[in-house]
Every structure is written in C-alpha cells, then in structure tokens.
C-alpha cells in the first residue's frame, strides 16, 4: 500500500461538517475526498487543496443548509417543549423582573422603529422622480472684491438655455421662479393663498410628477396656462369623480389681472418627500415672453432656480469643471453682472439634506441632525440589549441549580446554549411585539413632533432590498449577540460546584458587566449633556437681543387686490392713522418685508465718489416712515424717514437709510460721515439721510448683513401693528373693520410676528424635542439595567452583609459599602462622557454664527443629574439589603 494518502485541508472538512446535515455529511465528504484524490493525480497537491476548499465552500447553499434546519428541529422537538415550558415558567416566576426586561427591550426597539421611519423618510426625498439620479440643481456663488457675497440657488434666466446650447451633456433643463400666493376668482368665488411657481415648459418633463390630465410636454407652453394640483382642482372646481380632464380648458382670473388664465393640466399632489412644493404651476411664458428683451435674455436679473438633466453616463464632477470657462465666456469677470459668478451642480438627492443655500425654495433639513438621530437610535438599542444581557446574567443564581441538574442528567453544553438562546429569542419576540404596540400607540404624537406623516407600513412599502437586509441583519445579530453571552455564562457552570451550593462568578464576567454599565451611563450622560446644550442654545437664540423689537406685533396681509395708483399712498397714510386711533394700538407701519423674511439683494451699489468699477452688494428693505419707530430700531446718525421722502414715482425717490454694516461695507469711517453722501445704484442716485443700528433681520443662524432702507409703499407690503393690550381679541375685530374700510374686496388675514419669526427655529425645536425624548428613554433603560445589577449584587452579598451587621456594622456603613461600587462605575462613565459630549456639541454649535460658550458648568449639571438618578435607582435595593435582619440571612449556616 501507499504511504498515507495526501489529506484535504482540515478546516474545510470541519466547515463541511458544520454546515451539512449529519445524515448527509459522510457521503458529501466522501465524494469531495474522492474528487480531491483524482485532482491530486491530475493537478498536483496544492491545486487540489485549493479546489477542495472552493468546492467545500460551495456547499454553503440553501439546498444544503436549509436541509440542516429540518433535521435540527426533528431531533429537538421533544426538548423544545420542555425548553418552552421552562422559559414560560421563568417569565412568570418573577413578573416584575420579566416586565422590566421585556419592557426595556421593547422600548429600545420601539425608539429604533420610530427613528428608522424618520430617517428613511428623510433619506427618501426626491428619489421618486424617474430621472432622480440625473437631475442636478445649478447653484451659484458670487464674489465681489474677493469676498463671497452670495451662496445661492438663484441665477439668471439665460443660464439654462445657454448651457443647454453649449454643452451636449445636458439632456434637458428647466427654470423655476416662485410666484408667491395665487389669489384667484372663479365666477364670484374668491380663493386665497395657494402657493405657485412660474416654471418653463420643460418642468414636467424634468420632474415626473404624475399627470392626471393634460399633456406633459405642452401644458406649460402657452402664456396664461396653469397646471393645478389635485387638491387645488378639487377646491376650485369641486371635482369629486376624478374626472380632471373635464376642467382642462376652463379659465379663472388671478388677482388684478384682466387676462383670464387657462387650466392646461392637473397633476397629483406633491409627495411628502418632494423638496419642491407647489399648489399651482404657472407657465413661464406668462411672466416672460421670448420677445421680452432684457428679461429672457437677461444676464443681470437673477430670480431663477435652474435644474438640469444630464445624459446617462455623464460624470457631473467632470462636467462641472467646464463651468469656470462658461463664466469667463458670458460674465467676463464682474463686468456683466457686477460680481464674479461661479456655478456648481448639486445632485438632486442632496437637495433636501445637504443644502445651505440662500434663496432656497427647497424644503431642507439638516442632514447632520438626521444622522445624529440615527446614532442616538443605535445607542439606545445597544443600551437596551446590554440591559438584557445584564439582567439575564444577573439572574444566573436562580438558574444555576437548573443548569447543574440538567448537566448531571446528561445535557450537553451545546444543548444548554441552544436552550438559553431560544429563551432570548422568545423574550426578544415578545419585546418586539411590545415595540410594535408602543410604536403604533406613539406614532401620531411622534409624527406631530417631527412634522411628517410617517407610518411603518409606508416605510416598509418604500423600503429597498439593501436597507431591508441591513435592518434584518442588525435585528437578528442583536438578538443573537444579546442571547449568546448569557447563554454561554449560564451553560458553563460546573455542576459539582453549583449543586454543592458554592457559587462564585469569574472575575471576567464581573468586569464584563461593569464595562456594560459604564457604556450605558457614558451614553446616557452624553445624551443628557447634548440635550442640555441644545436647549440652552435654543433659549439663547430665542432670548437674544435682536436689535429690533419683534414682540407684540400683529401683522396684516397686504391688500393685493387694491390697485396701485396715485391715491394709494394717501390711502395707506389714512389707514395707518385710523389704526393708531384704536385703543391698544401703539403704532402701525408698512414694509416690503418683515423681520424673519429673507431680503432681496442689490448687487451694483457704490458711492458716487467712488470709481465706476466698484461694486457693493446690500440687502434691500422697503419701509415707510413709521417703520423704525414701530420696531424700535435705534437711530445712530442723521434722521429717520419723513412722510415727504415717499414718492409715487419710484424713480423720484432720493433718500435712503443704511445700517451700520452698510457704513462699514462702503468704507466710510463713521456713521456721522455717511450722512449726506450719495449712493449710485445703476442710474439711480440717492442720498444717505440716516444710519440705524444693525439688527437680526433673520434668525441667529444667519449673520447680520448690510442693509439699505428705501422709503417705499406698495400693495404687496404687510402692515405691522404694534399693540399694547392684555387681550388682543377685540382689537383684531377693530383692525379688520378699518382694513375693510380702506381696502374693500381684500380678504383680511392676520398673524403675529413672534410666531412667524420663531418658525425659523422649527428645525432646532424638532431636534431638541426628539433628542430630549430619547435621552429620557435612554436614562430609563439604563436605570432598569442598574436595578437589575444592584439586586444581583445585593443577593450575592446577602451573607456578607449579614455577617458585617452581626459584627456591628452600621446601616450607613452598609449603604455606603454597597453604593460605592456602583457610584464608581457611574463616575467613570461621566468622565468618559465629557470628551464625547464636548466633541459632538462643539461640532453641532459650529453651525451657528451666534452661539453659547461651552462652559464647564454645562457639563457639571448633567454629571450631578446622572449621579443622583443612579443613586436613587440603586438606593431602593440597597436600603432593603441594609435593613435585613442578619438573623434571617444567616440562620441556614
């Protein structure tokens, strides 16, 4: 006979045996070895070994592995019943404990389910468009005197067509200009306040909003054509039977326009995850005719948002690198528009979460906050699983005798592991049911906080294969990991020692449990510090001195349906006079914008004395002579506007007020010196009559800009009414009466400035609320874990305590002895949380130009809170132990 035949790799054989059903393992191995032997003869040993390994790995397939499971169940059905019975008895034996365990895990899972919904909703924005992968927003940065003056999405109407002409990479482009409110009259019915966009004819081709009636390609071609959304069509024409084709061709009247608008199509309502939202689309040709020179071919009028669709396979980054040449060609440095123009592309899918643009019409949210929430969710889930591990192992004492007995009766370690894993799967399943119930119950309140109509079913329906796999993988691996550790700890007891009654844990297990507690409390302390800092920053922004008084201001919508004519200015003057006669009204003013609004910009300003190639950019604010008094804007130099500054003909206006930032921008040494200087804006020449202090026109998330105030009146100006009264209700009726008297036919709509101003902080409010809730949950779950652990230690040390007491230890001594161990862990956790929280919050605060300082006191308060909470949690158990009569615990010795 030959010496020993060559052997296939041992690991591959082991692998085979582990995946193949026992019944089949032998023949499979045999076949593979036979193949291996023939391979050795044909290809030599090393190649045969490689082939063997590869062949063995290929046996890892459902047809083999699943066969395994069936046999597994077959073997274990008898024990399975027993396992289930024991598991059930264990759950019911200690109800409080089981409740804590299941509820803790369930809450953790529920939090994850909710956040998962939120995150997947945020990530799903704009993915529903057919061309979503190929649509890009054109964004535009402008530079003057070497400084960035605008980082926006708006650009010139000529850019789209010119780019499409110059670059074959572009398949399509579309232009959008927000048109504000659409106030329409159909027969005698008036409908107010439907938000519209002017869009060109390509809009519906670029964005595949489902069309219910009309033609996608031609609906927005003609001037005075409208496309309504489904709900607006229902509102205007009472369409109930879904026959939207029947209203195509009908007409309506918009505002003061005499030319009727024609309905050219109806599209489905905007999905909740669309970055662009509208009620009505108006054809671009209504706004600009192709023959309108100075408009459609304008290189200076920049109110248009551009979207382009790139041809398949075009790399947008490479394409973007052609834009500098484009700028040079058409903008010639700052010669054409007064600023140096740089263009970029932003993939549409990033528009919702990763936009920091000015004049953005997209619904945006902070991508960082979304990822932060996902991290918080994972934190909480891990805390919950750790808890489960801690609580389960802490009950080891109860189970030790069972394990010992099972082993004596012949149970294998693997069987015990299986038993305990089965138990943990069971508990996880119950917890999962609890989680679904909690999610279901809290869904509507959660939706209210995050402001999106979320639902689990919707998310599951929209979910794509990869995210489903990840979610399932996370859940399954979590359950298994959480089950494995206790299973191995419990199954490793030596029956002889356990059954004799001696029972000591390994120091490794102790360390593990302590590490888990430290992790939990580090996470909780970090969350508390984060919550505190977020809420401090919010309070700071809400309470900050804005430089302008926005409290107690009532706003009335502009009288858009009143014509602008020579009598308008006197009419507004009289209207304001009559308003101030109402008791409780302090003063009234009209202005083109109100605090909180984004201001428009003018790009070509300079002082008359400066050389003609100088360009400065300022925000533009149309205000009347009552504005500065109504809003308590402090005058620094010169005078405020006088009624005589207002002119019916805008071209005749010759006085302006600027703020201190504008003084600085123009390079004037002091406010005093600015008075009397002349400013040129194109052909217009105006004189500076006053300088006012800087104020926060927008939220504290934005810096304060240079502003030029121009004394204008307009039919689009809102009225700001400063009131001083305890109860504004009766006052509102009086204001309405005055408004109706001067502006008949206009609907009276009012609001309060503070509410509108604070809406700028919606994102922060939402973030703060969600983080607060999750922090609370995190703490609760951590404390549940601590309860488990403290009760475990207390039970373990019962005899020790008994002896100590018998020898005369005081209660206080016992309490401090027992608590010291835990408090040490919590202190370590707190110390670890400092750098974590500091880094996270430093990063978060860096988004705000005006922010709180990260003082050490901000970190101290959470530390104390956590300590108090932790002590309160364990004290119950500890005091109970300290109070026990040593006679009870020692009588069995």
């Amino acid at each position, binding site marked *: 006979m030959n010496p020993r035949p060559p052997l296939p790799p041992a690991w591959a054989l082991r692998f085979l045996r582990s995946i193949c059903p026992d019944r089949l393992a032998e023949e*499979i191995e045999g*076949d593979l070895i036979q193949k291996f*032997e023939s391979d050795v003869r044909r290809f030599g040993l090393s190649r045969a070994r490689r082939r063997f390994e590869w062949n063995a790995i290929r*046996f890892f*397939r459902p047809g083999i592995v699943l066969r395994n499971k069936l046999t597994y169940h077959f073997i274990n059905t008898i024990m399975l019943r027993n396992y289930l019975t024991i598991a059930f008895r264990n759950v019911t034996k200690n109800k409080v404990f089981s409740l804590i365990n299941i509820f803790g895990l369930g809450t953790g899972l529920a939090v994850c389910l909710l956040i998962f919904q939120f995150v997947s909703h945020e990530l799903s924005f704009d993915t529903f468009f057919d061309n979503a992968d190929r649509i890009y927003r054109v964004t535009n940065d402008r530079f003057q005197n070497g400084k960035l003056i605008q980082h926006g999405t708006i650009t010139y109407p000529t850019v789209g067509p010119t780019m499409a002409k110059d670059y074959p990479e572009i398949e399509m482009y579309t232009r959008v200009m927000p048109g504000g409110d659409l106030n329409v009259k159909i027969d005698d019915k008036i409908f107010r306040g439907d938000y519209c966009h002017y869009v060109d004819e390509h809009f519906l081709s670029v964005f595949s909003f489902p069309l219910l009636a009309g033609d996608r390609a031609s609906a927005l071609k003609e001037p005075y054509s409208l496309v309504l959304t489904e709900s607006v069509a229902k509102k205007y024409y009472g369409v109930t039977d879904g026959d939207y084709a029947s209203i195509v061709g009908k007409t309506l009247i918009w505002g003061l326009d005499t030319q009727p608008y024609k309905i050219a199509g109806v599209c489905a309502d905007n999905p909740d995850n669309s970055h662009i939202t509208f009620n009505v689309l108006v054809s671009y040709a209504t706004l600009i005719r192709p023959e309108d020179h100075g408009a459609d071919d304008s290189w200076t009028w920049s109110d248009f948002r551009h979207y382009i669709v790139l041809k398949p396979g075009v790399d947008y980054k490479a394409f973007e690198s052609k834009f500098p040449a484009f700028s040079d060609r058409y903008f010639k440095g700052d010669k054409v528009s007064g600023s140096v123009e740089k263009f970029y592309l932003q993939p549409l899918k990033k528009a919702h979460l990763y936009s920091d643009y000015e004049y953005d019409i997209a619904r945006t949210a902070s991508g960082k906050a979304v990822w932060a929430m996902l991290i918080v969710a994972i934190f909480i889930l891990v805390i919950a699983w750790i808890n489960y591990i801690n609580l389960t192992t802490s009950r080891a004492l109860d189970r030790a005798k069972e394990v010992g007995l099972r082993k004596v009766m012949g149970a294998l370690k693997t069987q015990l592991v299986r038993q305990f894993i089965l138990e943990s799967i069971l508990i996880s399943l119950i917890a999962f049911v609890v989680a679904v119930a909690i999610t279901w119950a809290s869904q509507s309140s959660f939706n209210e906080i995050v402001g999106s109509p979320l639902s689990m079913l919707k998310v599951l329906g929209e979910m794509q294969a990869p995210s489903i796999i990840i979610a399932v993988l996370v859940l399954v691996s979590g359950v298994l990991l959480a089950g494995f550790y206790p299973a191995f700890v419990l199954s490793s007891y030596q029956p002889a020692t356990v059954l004799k009654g001696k029972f000591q844990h390994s120091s490794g297990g102790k360390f593990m449990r302590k590490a888990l507690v430290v992790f939990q409390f580090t996470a909780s302390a970090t969350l508390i510090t984060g919550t505190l800092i977020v809420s401090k920053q919010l309070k700071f922004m809400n309470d900050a001195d804005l430089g302008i008084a926005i409290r107690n201001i009532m706003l009335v919508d502009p009288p858009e349906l009143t014509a602008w004519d020579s009598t308008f200015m006197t009419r507004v003057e009289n209207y304001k006079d009559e308003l101030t006669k109402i008791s409780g009204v302090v003063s009234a003013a009209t202005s083109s914008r109100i605090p909180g609004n984004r201001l428009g910009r003018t790009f070509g300003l300079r002082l008359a004395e400066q050389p003609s190639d100088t360009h400065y950019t300022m925000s533009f604010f149309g205000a009347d002579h009552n504005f500065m008094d109504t809003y308590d804007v402090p005058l620094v130099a010169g005078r405020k506007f006088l009624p005589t500054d207002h002119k019916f003909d805008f071209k005749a206006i010759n006085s302006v007020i600027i703020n201190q930032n504008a003084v600085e921008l123009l390079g004037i040494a002091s406010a005093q010196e600015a008075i009397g200087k002349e400013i040129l804006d194109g052909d217009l020449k105006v004189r500076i009559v006053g300088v006012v202090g800087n104020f926060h026109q927008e939220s504290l998330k934005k810096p304060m800009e240079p502003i030029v105030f121009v004394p204008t009146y307009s039919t689009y100006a809102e009225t700001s009414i400063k009131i001083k009264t305890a109860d504004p209700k009766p006052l509102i009726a009086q204001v309405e009466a005055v408004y109706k008297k001067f502006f008949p036919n206009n609907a009276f709509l009012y609001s309060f400035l503070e509410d509108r101003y604070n809406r700028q902080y919606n994102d922060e409010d939402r973030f703060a609320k969600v983080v607060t809730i999750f922090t609370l949950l995190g703490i609760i779950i951590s404390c549940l874990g601590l309860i488990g652990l403290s009760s475990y230690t207390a039970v373990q040390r019962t005899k020790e305590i008994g002896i100590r007491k018998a020898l005369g230890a005081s209660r206080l001594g016992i309490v401090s002895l027992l608590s010291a161990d835990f408090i040490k862990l919590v202190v370590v956790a707190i110390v670890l949380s400092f750098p974590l929280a500091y880094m996270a919050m430093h990063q978060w605060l860096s988004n705000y130009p005006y922010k709180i300082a990260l003082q050490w006191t901000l970190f101290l308060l959470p530390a104390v809170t956590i300590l108090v909470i932790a002590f309160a949690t364990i004290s119950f158990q500890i005091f109970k132990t300290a109070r026990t009569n040593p006679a009870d615990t020692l009588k069995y010795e």
Partner: protein
Amino acid sequence: MSKEYLGEFEELILTMVGVLQEEAYGAAIAEEIEKRLKRDVNLSAVHVTLYRLEDKGLIKSKVGGATSERGGRRKRIYTITSAGLALLRTMKETRMDLWKLIPQLKMSV
C-alpha cells in the same frame, strides 16, 4: 404526477442515476457528466439536485459499504424509482411528439 416538472439539470441527473445503476453516487455522477457531456459541473449542485429528486420520490438511496478509498467514507448509492423512470419516459415521448411537429425539410439541405 403528470404535472410534475423537471428542470434540465434535474432531468440530466435523473438520467445519470438510471445510467450508472449500482455506481450512481455524487462524485461518480459528476465525473460521468464531465466525461460524456464535456460539461463542468459542481459537486454541490449535483448533491442538492439528488436530494431534491429524492424528496420528489423519483430516486431512492441507501448507504453502501465502507472502503479504504475516499478517506474511509461510505458512499450513498442512488437508484431510480419506477416513478422516476415513468417520468423520464413521459418526458422523452412528449419531446419526440413535439420533435415530429418541426418541419424537417429545411434540415435536409
């Protein structure tokens, strides 16, 4: 059983079990296919198919005696059942019926 459907590979394996008689086990079948059809087959695929055919009742198996080859592992010998044979026959006849329907003229060129 008339609705029973067999895939191409399943049919091939079933036929091979019939052909090889007492020598029909995983490795031999794979070898035979490679030899006769010049087609590379993977052992795991052969095994999975054999088990599936056994589940369907088309073949049955018994464990053979141990030998000194194959690392001392025993073989599992498969034999075709009468149901398997009947199915093979039906499939062949159906195919022949269809074959006759193809206009044969073009073939004689």
